[in-house]
């Protein structure tokens, strides 16, 4: 435990939260919390999901793309250089503003209603593509359902959504990354924090979750990350 605390002291700082969007991590938990994984380092990985995402959008110009992983210079450059308009929102910061440490515990319905009011609040059929990254898997089940319904609403018919889900068990600590696009099929992963998974996901869960969409396609990578392409 002491070793863990010392490691936490020297690890890179997590997502800064100048506006109260604190993202907690394994270091703030005590002995009866689930064991933490070592803090991950930056890495670069190929992404079939990303390749598929851009293939689905290919040929179109002046598209509207929503990035739910927060503002990233790399993603802004990559997407705007292709002539698309980028919208940015940080779903996890939005979540932590309502449920993070120090927040007064409200009724779940109230929290969900506020979350949906403050996040993903766009007109219907606004986006051609949504880069969800791994943000959905940190939402509690009810909130997740609402978020997926909202995503379906804001996507145009035929629009594409890219989402990542870890294959870890419920409660396990997983790394949350900032996903930076290097090229059409390569991502640079910059660790933000680690946090527990509130739900476990397998293919059947995901098919059910995105059951109301037109198509769902999975790519299972070697690093225990399931990449999911969903088409409205």
């Amino acid at each position, binding site marked *: 435990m002491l070793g863990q605390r010392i490691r936490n002291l020297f690890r890179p700082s997590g*997502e*800064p939260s*100048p*506006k109260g*969007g604190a993202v907690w991590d394994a270091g703030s938990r005590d002995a009866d919390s689930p064991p933490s994984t070592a803090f991950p380092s930056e890495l670069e990985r190929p992404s079939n999901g990303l390749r598929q995402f851009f293939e689905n959008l290919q040929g179109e110009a002046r598209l*509207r793309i929503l990035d739910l992983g*927060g*503002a*990233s*210079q790399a993603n*802004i450059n990559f997407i*705007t*250089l292709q002539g698309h*308009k*980028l*919208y*940015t*929102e*940080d779903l996890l*910061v939005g979540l932590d503003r309502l449920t993070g440490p120090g927040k007064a515990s409200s009724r779940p319905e109230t929290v969900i209603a506020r979350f949906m009011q403050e996040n993903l609040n766009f007109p219907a059929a606004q986006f051609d593509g949504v880069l969800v990254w791994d943000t959905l898997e940190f939402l509690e089940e009810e909130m997740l359902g609402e978020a997926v319904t909202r995503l379906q609403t804001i996507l145009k018919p035929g629009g594409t959504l890219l989402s990542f889900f870890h294959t870890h068990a419920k409660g396990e600590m997983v790394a949350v990354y900032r996903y930076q696009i290097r090229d059409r099929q390569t991502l640079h992963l910059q660790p933000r924090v680690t946090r527990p998974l509130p739900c476990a996901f397998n293919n059947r869960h995901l098919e059910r979750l995105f059951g109301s969409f037109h198509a769902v396609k999975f790519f299972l990578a070697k690093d225990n990350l399931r990449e999911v392409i969903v088409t409205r």
Partner: protein
Amino acid sequence: MPPLKFLFFFEHKSFSMDTETEWGARMWGKKDNMPPAPPEKPSGPPVSSVQEAKAVSSIPMVKPSEAERERSGGGHALIGKSVQVKGEISGSEDLYVDGEVRGAIELREHSLTVGPHGKVEANVNAREIIVNGALNGNVHASEKIEIRKTGSLMGDLTTARIIIEDGAYFKGSIDILKSGQKTEAPPKVLPSVSVPAKPSVQPPLQMVAVETRNL
């Protein structure tokens, strides 16, 4: 802390700043221990009988960095952190906001810097915008927008170039202007307060309704 000694209200366009004097002596950043600047000779007929108020604040000002001053050629208007502005600001020099501004900011060919204590709730049209504090509103910058790591920007951006430091918060849309492309400036949030006719000499900064309060 002694209470603020000033409250001023501009209703005309004769307001101008002395760009020759020390930074701290200008506008709201005037230091108490500096000798008062000699009164300027009027270059034209007075446009209003309203006298320009000398702003004296007991709260130390956060000044723009030397680099920011140099970049802007030294001409900077300053809104200190104890100052709150409601209404429309337009001008033909760079503006540094470390207080609160609510309304609209129109600087066109000049830059806006939101200081670390700055809170701006306004649509902004400028050449360059640097955000160290909080800016909430739609933003049009013909040259670039820079959100520093302590900065937060919520709104729709239209610019030729954007720089976002790690740790900066941004929520909204980004539309990159291609060279030669021109878009309409964002609509003003607040209706513009009626201003008397323009004076013969264009002042560097025009302000409407300035309130100050001890924050």
